[in-house]
């Protein structure tokens, strides 16, 4: 029992509600939302360290003992993601201050961002399956509002698709919950895990697990990613960066929880299917990333590749691979947000999103150019940067378990990532500048600083691997040994 665990959800919700009353005071909205997110960052660092000393902590709402009430459970995995979420959200907010435009700020942009962060954090922290559904919906409703905010034609069209897909996947989620409840009679995740272990994961439970796989596959963009590039490329840059950094990662998180805590008894069926889906996602994402000449599409397809790559780690499911996936997940949240911000800045500077129509940007905007270059290297997994640890650990896991096809696909996809981004770099940043020094639009500091901060975070994650690894190792240990989680929740 520790009430501090509820703060990462409650602070954004309360701040969001409060901000509704300050609609016309944009300065108050800005600073209050940033303060709320930064305080969540501080609190999550505090809780993360507390977990290292005291083990997994939980909060039973209304003091209903598990498995009866709903509860929040904080382990290292959740808190690492909560911390990264709030970092990314804070940096995207800074970018939004300078780019989102007064009209959107007045239409409750900040409250929606805060509520979305609350939903994301709630999904990470909850220990109850139905509560996970509710937090998903909180996050999704805020994201529906954010994707349509501004109401341009393209946004409205893509949002109909986005909302319809998500309503459908939420329906599957409800159906899966209903079947699971009918089969084992509980929704508390630790209790579920225990009961499924007792029943030995019968074929019926395996089918239900595949239903969950379908749900989270739709949410995370694993194989079922057809909706993703469109809906991630229409909203304004700051929103797209939040989506690219956070939303798919919640689906990935849920998948990790499901298939390491609940449905880990039949890996030859479930994990093989995850492996196949991850492999096809890698192939499809790679083709998409090199097929388009629109930067925002290329960047969106890079999100798809990363989803496939992280889930290779889950499919392989050795301790090393799980650790690698967690490391890569944290890295990817930071780096994808940076990539979306840089791509959006480039589009705003040149007035086009086609890579053929821009050239020589690095001459006038060196910091932007070098940030992009470093982010590109990090994504490709060049050693000192943040992508390297994740890649090497997932690769090691794949070799240990003999999944050479997945290993080959993930390595080849890294080359495609590098190629697709290098193409942007060579076409847009390199070469003759099309504009002279005087003509080029000045780049606002508010655009550069968030990009530079995220780049610095990526570098820090790479060089500071030694400091972060205890947390990641602890998170991986909890995931690979479900009894740590069950004992902490059910107090055996």
């Amino acid at each position, binding site marked *: 029992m520790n009430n501090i665990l509820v703060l990462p959800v409650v602070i954004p919700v309360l701040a969001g509600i409060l901000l509704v009353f300050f609609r016309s005071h944009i300065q108050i909205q800005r600073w209050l939302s940033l303060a709320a997110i930064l305080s969540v960052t501080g609190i999550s660092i505090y809780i993360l360290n507390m977990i290292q000393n005291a083990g997994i902590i939980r909060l039973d709402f209304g003091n209903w003992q598990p498995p009866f009430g709903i509860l929040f459970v904080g382990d290292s995995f959740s808190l690492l993601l909560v911390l990264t979420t709030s970092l990314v959200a804070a940096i995207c907010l800074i970018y939004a201050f300078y780019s989102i435009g007064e009209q959107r700020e007045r239409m409750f942009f900040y409250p929606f961002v805060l509520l979305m962060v609350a939903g994301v954090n709630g999904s990470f922290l909850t220990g109850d399956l*139905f509560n996970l*559904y*509710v937090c998903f*919906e909180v996050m999704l*409703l805020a994201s*529906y*509002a954010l994707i*349509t905010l501004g*109401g341009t*034609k*393209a946004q*409205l*069209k893509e*949002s*109909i698709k986005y*909302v*319809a897909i998500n*309503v*459908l996947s*939420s*329906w599957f989620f*409800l*159906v899966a*919950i*209903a*079947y699971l*409840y*009918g089969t084992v009679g509980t*929704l508390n995740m630790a209790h579920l895990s225990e009961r499924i272990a007792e029943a030995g994961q019968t074929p019926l439970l395996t089918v239900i697990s595949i239903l969950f796989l379908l749900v989270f596959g739709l949410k995370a963009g694993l194989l079922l990613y057809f909706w993703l590039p469109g809906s991630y490329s229409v909203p304004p840059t700051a929103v797209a960066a939040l989506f690219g950094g956070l939303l798919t990662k919640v689906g990935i998180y849920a998948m990790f929880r499901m298939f390491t805590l609940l449905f880990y008894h039949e890996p030859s069926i479930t994990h093989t299917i995850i492996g196949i889906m991850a492999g096809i996602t890698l192939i499809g994402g790679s083709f998409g990333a090199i097929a388009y000449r629109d930067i925002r599409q290329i960047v969106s397809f890079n999100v798809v590749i990363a989803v496939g790559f992280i889930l290779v780690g889950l499919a392989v499911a050795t301790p090393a691979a799980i650790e690698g996936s967690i490391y890569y997940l944290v890295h990817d949240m930071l780096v994808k947000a940076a990539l979306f911000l840089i791509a959006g800045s480039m589009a705003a500077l040149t007035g086009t999103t086609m890579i053929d129509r821009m050239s020589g940007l690095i001459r006038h905007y060196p910091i932007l150019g070098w940030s992009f270059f470093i982010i590109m290297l990090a994504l490709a997994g060049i050693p000192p940067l943040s992508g390297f640890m994740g890649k090497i650990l997932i690769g090691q896991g794949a070799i240990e378990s003999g999944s050479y096809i997945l290993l080959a696909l993930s390595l080849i996809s890294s080359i495609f990532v590098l190629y697709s981004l290098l193409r942007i770099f060579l076409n847009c940043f390199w070469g003759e500048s099309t504009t002279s020094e005087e003509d080029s639009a000045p780049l606002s500091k508010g655009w550069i600083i968030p990009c530079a901060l995220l780049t610095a975070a990526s570098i820090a994650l790479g060089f500071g691997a030694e400091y972060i690894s205890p947390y990641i190792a602890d998170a991986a240990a909890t995931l690979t040994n479900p009894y740590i989680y069950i004992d902490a929740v059910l107090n055996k």
Partner: protein
Amino acid sequence: METLIIILTGVLVSVATYLFLSRNVIRIILGTAVLTHAAHLLIMTMGGLKTGGVPVLGEETTTFTDALPQALILTSIVISFAVTAFLLVLAYRLYQESRSDNLNVLRSMLNE
């Protein structure tokens, strides 16, 4: 009784699928509403239909109906209500912008 409700759920799902696959935005929205109600019926049936008294400790009853499915459905109804309201507003805005509620027309118009 369970069989009857499950058949009803199946009918609702097929109606919703039919609506969902049409080209008209309003029909799709109605489809999502029907779809969620099918899910609610499913949850209720999976929790077991009325098998005992109300879930309040008393002296006469010894068996109780499971209260959890009802709590889940209540939450889910609220969420589905919010999403449907949002979708209706979205459809209205889409109609304002493009003067059409046919998805085929919208697709050809917006991809230019």
